[in-house]
């Protein structure tokens, strides 16, 4: 997990280097389709009103194994270095009880291209929306955010392949009027996807 975060930080530092951000490649109105597939690391679970569970970290804390993550997105450039669009994803992780926790995020997506050379892009993504959490025949609709960095190398003029790393989080909230003991079970879940991205730009 620490290596994962260091990688994200390194990419952000590289993105800030002015030598990489000289020319604009994209025009307003250009579009990009992205296919994402990879693994999903459990990072945190935070139980806001439960002192016993509190903040749980990693596999042994969250009782969740490494899983998978996939997504499809479509974006259109609104300026020469900013694109907006949408993304639908699917993540799954087994719990210690070997039951599958799934989340299906449907989000709006904002992508910033600080580096764009035509052959290489460095993209920073920010997603916000909702997700359907599912576990053991229970469902919950939760707010969802995702932040990631995505260096991409273009093999042809249109097709590129990249590495997308970041964090996504959602919040399962129960008010004080929730049934049973659930009012003390409000929790946020944070996962760290590390994925390959295949981009088609047009």
């Amino acid at each position: 997990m620490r290596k994962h975060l260091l990688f994200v930080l390194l990419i952000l530092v590289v993105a800030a280097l002015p030598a990489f951000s000289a020319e604009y490649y994209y025009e307003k109105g250009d579009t990009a389709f992205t296919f994402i597939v990879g693994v999903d690391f459990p990072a945190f679970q935070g139980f806001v009103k439960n002192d016993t569970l509190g903040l749980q970290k990693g596999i042994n804390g969250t009782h969740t194994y490494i899983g998978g993550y996939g997504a499809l997105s479509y974006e259109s450039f609104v300026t020469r270095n900013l694109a907006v669009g949408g993304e639908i994803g699917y993540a799954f992780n087994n719990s210690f009880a070997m039951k599958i926790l799934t989340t299906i995020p449907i989000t709006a997506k904002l992508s910033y291209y600080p580096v764009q050379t035509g052959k290489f892009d460095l993209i920073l993504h920010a997603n916000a929306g909702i997700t359907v959490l599912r576990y053991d025949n229970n469902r919950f609709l939760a707010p969802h955010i995702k932040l990631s960095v995505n260096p991409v190398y273009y093999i042809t003029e249109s097709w590129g392949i990249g590495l997308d790393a970041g964090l996504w989080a959602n919040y399962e909230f129960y008010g004080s009027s929730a049934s049973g003991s659930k009012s003390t079970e409000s929790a946020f879940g944070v996962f760290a996807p590390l994925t390959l991205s295949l981009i088609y730009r047009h």
Partner: protein
Amino acid sequence: MKKLTLFLTVAALLLLASCNVDSEHGIYYQVATSQPSSGYNIVHFIHNDGTNLYFLADNGICYTTETKGDTKYVEGTKDLNIRGAYFDGTDFLYSRRVDNSSEIYKLTTSTGKSEKITYEKDKLDVSFNGFVYNSNGFYEKDGSAFTDVSISNPRFSRDSMLTMDGTTKAKIIDLEAHTTTEVTGLKASATGFIEGVDNNKYYIFDGKNIYKVSASCALGDTAYYSDLDSAPTRGYTAVEYYEGSKKCLLVRTSKGFTKIDTSGDTGTLVEKNVQFLSTLNDVVVIDMVTFGVGKVAIITYANGIYIADMVEKTLSKDIL
């Protein structure tokens, strides 16, 4: 058209969001409290000799100390389709299914050999406390038949059995004293039955009520404790133990564990949903037994055995 799409989207999302309203626990809570399988599916607890815990798993009789990885099968009991077992401290008595029937065996541990025992009745089972029974009656430890009672929905304590006679009538059968005591006054079917730390003092669970009775008296109108959360699917599991001079009852409910002080004439609540045991709230608990001073062994179906130090408020990881 756009308004209709927006409306349908919002309606679909609200429908999805409402799906978890009636569930017992939150999703992340269930995940965080999920436990890995121990590799042993425990059918019932058998015996605690102070060093080893003996239990029947679905593929043999096992014993374990408190040390992780120390679990062993009792020689000659693996993969025999054993359905019930009793340990008298030296030898085992067990029942196994063979061709849609049941056979009873005695295993002599010094030789590792099992000997089939023939009874007049068939389709018999063995309980952890040594009853050999079917729906028409049971055999005592010396093999003599005890037939003036029908066995329905039996629940076993250390040396007794509670059997239902109709919905709200029951009998406590004392295996040692060979006595049968009719229990009247139940408001519903018994959903739990244990023997307390004092011999011949029993706790009977009925709906959300707990009654404390002896082998020679019936239930009164007043429950010993009457504010339990609902019973788990299998019925209540409970254990009475000492914390110093204080007696306590730990009860597994559908929501977690409830601790009741049983030192007085009526039970008083100490803690509902005992917090330090909450990581076991979503596992199936088969039984709970005392395990040293102030300690309780919590025996789960598929997630192993845990030792709860009720004084220090600590819970071990699975010891299997």
